């Protein structure tokens, strides 16, 4: 145990996700010992992020304004919505530069064992967005794990509407990997989702 404020700093850092007591101690001493470290700037950014950043009222993505830059962008297609679990998934998909539509962030996945049901996610908001008939395709991009698949199943059942195409992200082999090292579940999915090659 350190004295006073140093221990307080270690305790506060240790409350952050993924940071254990040892890491907290290392970060605390880095802040204390490194002269070049701008503590004031870090403190300002932390305060600013809490004050300025909020969730987009349309899609649920993080934003500094009432709506996020993607929802405000007139060049993006308003007929396609990609449904993701978390705001960080939006960044991952944006990095691909393959998708030019809008997003909808659910805020998690259905997990009864954790007490999270459909009513705890932003599913009602998604249905409201689909109400005016502008959207013609919904791409479900929940995580390829059990909770993500179950959430996709639930959404698929809910999204059966005329003139609405519902698709799910393909899953299978990672690019650059060797087939022999793929596990049977992933390889099975790759077979299931195989596509016809046109000459």
């Amino acid at each position, binding site marked *: 145990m350190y004295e006073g404020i140093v221990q307080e700093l270690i305790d506060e850092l240790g409350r952050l996700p993924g940071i254990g007591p040892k890491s907290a101690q290392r970060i605390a001493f880095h802040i204390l010992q490194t002269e070049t470290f701008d503590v004031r700037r870090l403190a300002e950014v932390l305060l600013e992020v809490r004050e300025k950043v909020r969730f987009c009222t349309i899609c649920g993505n993080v934003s500094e304004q009432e709506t996020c830059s993607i929802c405000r962008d007139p060049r993006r297609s308003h007929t396609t919505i990609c449904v993701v679990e978390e705001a960080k998934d939006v960044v991952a998909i944006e990095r691909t530069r393959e998708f030019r539509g809008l997003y909808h962030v659910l805020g998690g996945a259905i997990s009864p064992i954790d007490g999270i049901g459909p009513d705890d996610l932003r599913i009602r908001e998604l249905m409201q967005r689909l109400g005016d008939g502008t959207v013609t395709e919904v791409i479900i991009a929940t995580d390829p794990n059990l909770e993500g698949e179950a959430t996709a199943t639930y959404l698929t059942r809910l999204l059966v509407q005329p003139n609405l195409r519902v698709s799910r992200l393909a899953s299978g082999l990672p690019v650059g990997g060797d087939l022999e090292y793929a596990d*049977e579940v992933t390889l099975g999915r790759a077979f299931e989702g195989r596509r016809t090659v046109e000459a």
Partner: protein
Amino acid sequence: MPLYRDEAVVLRTHKLGEADRIVTMLSRQHGKIRAVAKGVRRTASKFGARLEPFMVADVQLYEGRSLDIITQAESLASYGADISADYGCYTAASAMVETADKITDDDGSLQQYLLLVGALRSLARREHGPSVTLDSYLLRSLSIAGWAPSFVDCAVTGEPGPHTYFVPQLGGVVADSVAPPGAARLDPATVSLLGALLSGDWTTVDTASDLSRNQASGVVAAYTQFHLERGLRSLQHVDRRA
């Protein structure tokens, strides 16, 4: 025993650090195991898909100080994809694994392991409705744990049945003479269905009316919640329409 191997069904997982998971499993010989699976959240993970809930795997573990570490996993049965393809099955399976998590400990119970694997297999193959499969699992799991309900003879006096008053606190149906005021009175068909769910008489279960099934589900939920003391979070999310 620094390194050991066992068959196990994955009950649940928790995120740990950057890319690891803590996996809670019910094993055939070692009871409930909590172990760290390193790097399984990365898409390039070689055994991440084998350690998803509802998977049965042959796992090799290294004994750690507080948590064991999974070094290898080979898939024995993969029920996750079939179960998650049906929302009713998914919610029922979630309630099953939560019950198994709460009812078992480190000592191990082969019967609990076999019962859970059998129930998950039945759900994945759609042998019966998810709701009745769950109810049957809950009654049998509680019975193995020592809380077998009585659906024929009086749970207090042993007087031969049939009886229709059901009191979870007294352990099942009770005779009219010992039923406390306000005790729930069940339809005789529901009592018969409950007995069938406990014994695995699937012919009776599959032909039961919706009314009896709904009433039986309520009774099973009340009985389970009473004996497990801490409520099952997933039970309120079970899709009984399925």
